[in-house]
């Protein structure tokens, strides 16, 4: 072992690398973890659930183990009309996002309110339940309300009473699996993107989200607020099926395979025939392009469209 003459070098190397990691991992980690969740972060977590990429509960990234976001205009328990409310339904066994299970991720004030006013301590993954995100009127601090405890809203009743079911959680899994983030960022830049792509996120906006999938390279527009710029489900449906239908110069791939075998009416989708019809339209033989099938309720296309429209 002729290593003695390199002893000083090895020690210096150890010190240099450790110091480097102390400054670039430990200190930033402390600083970032100090920031509590914003309202946006609580909403995102309750929409996307525990993990959107590979995990033990959804190894093939099919959009399993995800909450469902619903829009309510009547109280699921009493049936009385209420103001338009967004609720997050976790069916029994759906895993909670880290922000609900790790105290330091939610933030001290947020957690205190969630426990006192939101009765969050009563929520368990095993039984599931319905959640709301509220903002305390006096302090402006956001918190999570466990509506199953505070209002008696049960999972089945809430899903039944819902005007709209938004599968944005499963949709984020599709966003990861299909590699949408290779070309679209979810991060308007702080310097010049305010006008085109909207408000850049702030530090607390990401608490508990995994993966954050900002993306690094834009081959298409930023999508963080795309649902505010374009809220048309018809446009999105056509655009996902074949982007060239609505944007002739788009270089986005077609995602027609996400439709699965049949459309919402159970009619089998014949992609070959659709292509022939589309080519006839492109050549100018027919005046109209072929109709785009409406995706089935549990199709992956429905998930991804829900996700994109939900990016407000």
């Amino acid at each position, binding site marked *: 072992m002729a290593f003695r003459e390199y002893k000083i070098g090895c020690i210096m190397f150890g010190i240099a690398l450790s110091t480097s990691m102390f400054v670039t991992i430990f200190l930033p980690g402390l600083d970032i973890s100090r920031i509590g969740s914003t309202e946006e972060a609580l909403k995102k977590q309750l929409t996307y659930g525990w993990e959107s990429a590979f995990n033990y509960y959804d190894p093939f990234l099919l959009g399993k183990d995800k909450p469902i976001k619903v829009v309510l205009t009547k109280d699921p328990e009493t049936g009385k009309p209420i103001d338009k409310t967004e609720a997050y339904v976790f069916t029994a066994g759906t895993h909670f996002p880290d922000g609900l299970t790790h105290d330091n991720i939610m933030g001290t004030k947020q957690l205190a309110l969630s426990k006192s006013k939101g009765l969050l301590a009563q929520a368990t993954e095993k039984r599931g339940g319905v959640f709301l995100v509220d903002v305390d009127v006096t302090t402006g601090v956001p918190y999570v309300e466990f509506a199953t405890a505070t209002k008696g809203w049960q999972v089945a009743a809430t899903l039944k009473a819902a005007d709209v079911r938004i599968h944005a959680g499963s949709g984020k899994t599709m966003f990861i*699996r299909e590699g949408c983030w290779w070309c679209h960022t979810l991060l308007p830049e702080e310097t010049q993107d305010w006008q085109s792509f909207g408000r850049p996120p702030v*530090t607390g906006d990401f608490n508990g989200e995994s993966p954050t999938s900002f993306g690094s390279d834009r081959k298409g527009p930023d999508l963080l607020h795309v649902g505010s710029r374009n809220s048309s489900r018809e446009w999105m449906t056509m655009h996902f099926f074949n982007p060239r239908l609505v944007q002739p110069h788009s*270089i986005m791939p077609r995602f027609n395979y996400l439709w699965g075998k049949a459309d919402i009416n159970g009619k089998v989708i014949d992609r070959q025939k659709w292509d022939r019809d589309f080519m006839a339209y492109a050549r100018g033989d027919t005046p109209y392009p072929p109709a785009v099938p409406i995706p089935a309720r549990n199709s992956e296309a429905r998930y991804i469209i829900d996700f994109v429209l939900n990016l407000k």
Partner: protein
Amino acid sequence: MLKYLLAKEEDIPQGSAAIFFGVSSICWFIIGTGLGSFNASKLAFPDFFHNVYWLQFGHMRQVHVHAVIFGWIAMAFAMSMLYITPALGNTKLWSEKLAVWNCLLYNVGLCLALALLWSGMTSGREYSDHIWPIDLYIAFVMVVPWSLNVWMTILNRRTQGIYTTNWFFAASMFMLIIIFLIGNLPEFFHLTGLNEAYMTWWFAHNVLGLLITPVAAAITYYIVPKVTGNPLYSHRVGHLHFWAIVVFYSTPAAHHLMSSPLPEWLKSFASVEGVLILVPAIAYICNIMLTMQGKWTMFVTNIELKFALTGVFLAIPLNMQGGFQQTRAINWYIHGTGWIVAHAHLALLGFSTFAEASAVYYGMQVLLRRKLYSYSLANFHFFMLLIGFSLYWISMTIAGLIQGAAKIYEVPYLDVVIAEHPYMIVRWLGGTMVFLGNITWLWNMYMTARVGTVVPVGRLPHELAYER
């Protein structure tokens, strides 16, 4: 190869594992660049093979990246280390058998990892896309045995000191393991939020900075003095390069996220450290250039030096870009544009690929004891690589500047896509040239092994004249 897996250590010819790694690296280079070329075709003409689910851009993009990083670059590194480390220690490889197993399990693991990525099973984190079971496999089955061989060979050396190249090899392997395990903590322990985002880029930055850059440089520290016969210009400048890499290259990770809401002190710190990357860069480039004193004709006549020095020349724009593009003044303009894609290819397809290609060209001749089959084919390969890369780099840089300008003037994004279309076609052309050039390389290597002139004992391949 398979017959050596169960053979006794002393029955395995020295250098077998390095040859297997070398051949694998060339094959993966062809696969990786072929995938890259195919992906580029989809960015130019998105309806190529659009009905084939398995050929979707979003599934193939990361397979290209990991095929070239883990297949080509890392395996070329393994090949270089397995023959250079013993040569510089005046000894033999610590365990040839371990290295043969290492090569087999490396290839098997990489096939599995890429198949899973291709099928869409991903961790959703750029550069650490592999799912965590694969991460553990990479760390403990692919990288640890390789590192052990490097470290133990250096410990068992029969020279008093350790040459520059070997410090870099030993330290880089150590840093790679640390970075791989720490950088993937978000997956192992489900860290979330901005911490996860930052760790993703901490990993991505350091895996490039502390593995690929120093090892590629270390390779040229060996090839250039060895082939020219000049001693390395300065051991001390080599020290400066080494320590500056450890200190300045391991710290600027946050400059990849300059427009994200990370703490401002961290971004400023990273930005300053990022400019200091010029210290090791200038030390390194000067050291190699000065080593060439009096032997510059060999840059034209010798294929190994042609590759190695082109790599070093490409390190100049690489580090000039790298040092300054991450400062606030410039970053806002080019962040997230094709400029960055061009820069990444300048690092991996420019600087490091040219350095590795020189090591693989030279190493294969030394290990096979055969002179390169065809100088003309090697020159053809060189220029296909250089011109293909240049087309790619120039077109993507221009595309990036267009995107940057569009940011300021708030051009609708679709107009940017239209404006970039010609550059996307040039990018495809450049990538395809690299791919085709690599096929000729494999043919050249195959013919070298078959019919190359045998190098007499006591001579080195570059001392012999070319026959074709």
